[in-house]
């Protein structure tokens, strides 16, 4: 059974919405979807034998000085389809794309009790760099970690 990735477009935006409804106890606003759409290749839908079962959605952020960093807004795979390597494919895609484009920093927030997610990101070289208290409202625990990873530049500019 094959795994494949596809870009997010306005025509299939509903697929991402359906995924998010199923995956997260959070309602995402229009800005989230606008950011996802404008991030281009940094947002991808993951397909398992032609069924859309997961997605990674990123936002590109300008740092002071003009450099760009990637913020992973969401990454998730539908429960029955976990453990098949789809999340890995999605994250690897973003990591590779980032280093190809000489982006040096990639980060995300994760709820402090989400051990599985933390372990998952650590495997890819992410480290906890900060703890923010009361980041979330309405869910417990309300605290989150900032996980980030610095990417080596592949081909330094001359």
């Amino acid at each position, binding site marked *: 059974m094959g795994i494949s990735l596809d870009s997010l477009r306005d025509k299939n935006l509903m697929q991402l919405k359906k995924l998010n409804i199923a995956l*997260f106890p959070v309602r995402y606003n229009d800005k989230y979807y606008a950011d996802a759409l404008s991030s281009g290749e940094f947002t991808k839908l993951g397909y398992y034998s032609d069924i859309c079962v997961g997605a990674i959605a990123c936002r590109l952020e300008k740092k002071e000085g003009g450099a760009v960093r990637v913020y992973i807004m969401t990454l998730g795979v539908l429960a029955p389809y976990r453990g098949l390597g789809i999340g890995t494919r999605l994250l690897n895609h973003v990591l590779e794309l980032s280093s190809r484009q000489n982006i040096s920093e990639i980060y995300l927030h994760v709820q402090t009790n989400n051990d599985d997610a933390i372990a998952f990101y650590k495997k890819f070289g992410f480290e906890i760099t900060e703890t923010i208290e009361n980041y979330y409202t309405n869910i417990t625990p309300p605290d989150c970690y900032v996980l980030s990873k610095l990417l080596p530049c592949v081909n330094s500019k001359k």
Partner: protein
Amino acid sequence: MGSSLPPKEANLFKVIVKSYETKQYKKGLKAADAILKKFPEHGETLSMKGLTLNCVDRKSEAYELVRRGLKNDLKSHVCWHVYGLLYRSDREYREAIKCYRNALKIDPDNIEILRDLSLLQAQMRDLDGFVETRQQLLTLKPNHRTNWIGFAVAHHLNSNSSKAVDILDAYEGTLEDDYPSENERCEHGEMLLYKVSLLEESGLLDRALEEMYKKEAKIVDKLSFKEQLVSILVKLGRKEEGEKLYKSLLQMNPDNYRYFVGLQKCLNLYCEDGLYTSEQVSQLDILYALLKEQYSWSYAAKRIPLDFLHGEKFQQAAENYVRPLLTKGVPSLFSDLSPLYDHHGKADILEQVFIELESSIRASGCFPGSEQKEPPSTLMWSLFLLAQHYERRGQYDIALIKIDEAIKHTPTVIDLYSIKGRILKHAGDLAAAAALADEARTMDLADRYLNSECVLRMLEADQMKKQELQYVDVKPVWMSSLWSILCLYKGSCHAPLMVVKAINPLCRCYMKLHDSPLKAAGGEDGDMSGLLPAQKRKLKQKQKKAEARAKKEAEEKGEEANSLGMSKTARRQQAKPVDLDPHGEKLLQVEDPLSEATKYLKLLQNNSSQSLETHILSFELNMRKQKILLAFQAVKQLLKLDENSPDSHRCLIKFFHRISSSASETETEKLISSVLEAERLNISQLHGNSLVEVNRDFLLRHKDSLMHRAAAAEMLYVLEPDKKHEALQLILETENNIAPVNGSLGPVRQWKIEECISVHKLLEEVFVSPESANSWKTHCAQYFPYSTYFEGLKSSLVTGLASYSMPENGDLSHQVGDGRTPNGNLHAFKDLSI
């Protein structure tokens, strides 16, 4: 062309023609204006300018200019040709042909005009004319292959296949021996195959065969060659050779059902109705076991045995067939299996198979008896299959449970939403069905099928306003598909189902118009005055719906009427690119709705004479028109087609009741009644029986069927109006028995929702008995809890539509909203193991 102009302008004229052909209309108009500046009355330029304007949607100017151009230069074949082209663009083909003919009077050998003329002659089925024109073209340019083939095709269409063969033979005679050259081989081969098919068609099988063997080397399309060859061999009874050929064809494509059927025919193992003897079944079983082995990739070899196997063997084969398709995820699996539901007992077996597969997957993640872990999607596809199974069984509540579970499992699969919509539709909740279809549509905005389906569901749910928004977008697709179907079927004897479907309601609308003309036309008339205000309102609503439908239908009809060469009136209704009559008001202002309806009825009678509906329409129409003998003809047809149908019964009783209650006065009427007296003897039901007795017999014969009881009750009321109460009891006392199929999850009942709705309408409109209608409604609401019509407790009317369209973005209560974190950043990785 443009010959009367000085060189500079003559060149400009060429520019106009060239620009028209290359669709550079602006450039063409510029050039035309440049000429007209100097020669404002130049006929050909005026015409060409008009033709160009026609292409940029300035129709009225176009006609004006083309006509003025023609008036200024009546002797110009260009002006006439242009006039013809203009008419053709408006599908006024007869007018166009007249113009072409005038052009040809001036320039008889003009190839382009001849070619245009021949196309329209073919379009209008003027086949003799078509042959003549093609002959002229061939005489003018005998060195073009197309002209030979065109001439042959003309004769072929004109039912003269042998003449067509002669022409192709003559054409071959003009060729050198080393023909064809490398780049012409394909076309030449096609011509040869065409010739062979003509020979086959005219029954010259030996000659066809001889020709095939002789020309084999020159036929490039080897697949068609084999198909053609095997068809001839089988017709010649050479079955052994046929068998070999079919096997080699299966080697090329092991999923072509026709090859399997052909092979079976060669082995004398085929019958049309699929009712094989047990000996034949075991022979077929052996045959397909072999074929399965030989063509291991073939789905057809695994699917076909499901048609002839029974019992345990069927169960085995079905399970083996279904398993890999569930693993692979084939959304069309149920439609593939659905014909089996008409076979006795197979639905039960399938249900058992599906349930076993589902529970095994749920328990172990594997199919029964297998160690192989199934992919996660298999459970979803199994639920999807089960949902459709229960839908087919009429067990809508279970179907909905299954489909909802599938959606919860994988909420991104669009087919799940489409099917849920269909289940709700059949369960009677049209509004919810439309909501689901719309949800499916939003999930892939680029999918035209989903878009059309959504529009259809909204039309069904009468959500006209919403639908209008998208309608514009979809219409062209519908139209073109309808049109292309018609093109294909035109001239052949069976009408496409779609047209029949469209014409029927149209005729009924015309009849309704006749029965109760619009308020504007005649005010409140007798038909409505006896009704309660609420009913009047309902009637009007219904009329409005009918109007809307009539409009839509008529648009489609316009297209079709043209292509079939219908009357002028029909043509007037044709769908223009811009709908000039968006609310169908003009359409409703027909002077004589019945004669309009008659026109369409004729189409039906010509094209679908085997359908009950056609004759029911004919009956109702002719009764209204007082055409007694034509109505009687319809009754006879109905009895011949199906004397047990409730509608046939209705027409029979209504007819003779009407005859007996009207006295014949004039000579003609007396003549008619004597004809009917004689004919009456030929109708077995009526022998020595009064109509009341006929009706009673009918009831006794079909006392367990709702629709038959309703018909008998209605006729009882017609025959003996004072027995209204008895008639109503007949309907209300009908029992909704359990169907003789054994659903393992709850009983399946016999009543169909559409039937119950029509009974409700009967009670309301014919019996005009609000109490009975109401008690029927309450009664039906129990059986059809999802029905909005009956206001069932589970319908969206009661529960609210919101429950069917999920909130856009999940649960609001969990919103993350402290401004600092606009995008809740949660990562769904519980249980993640990589």
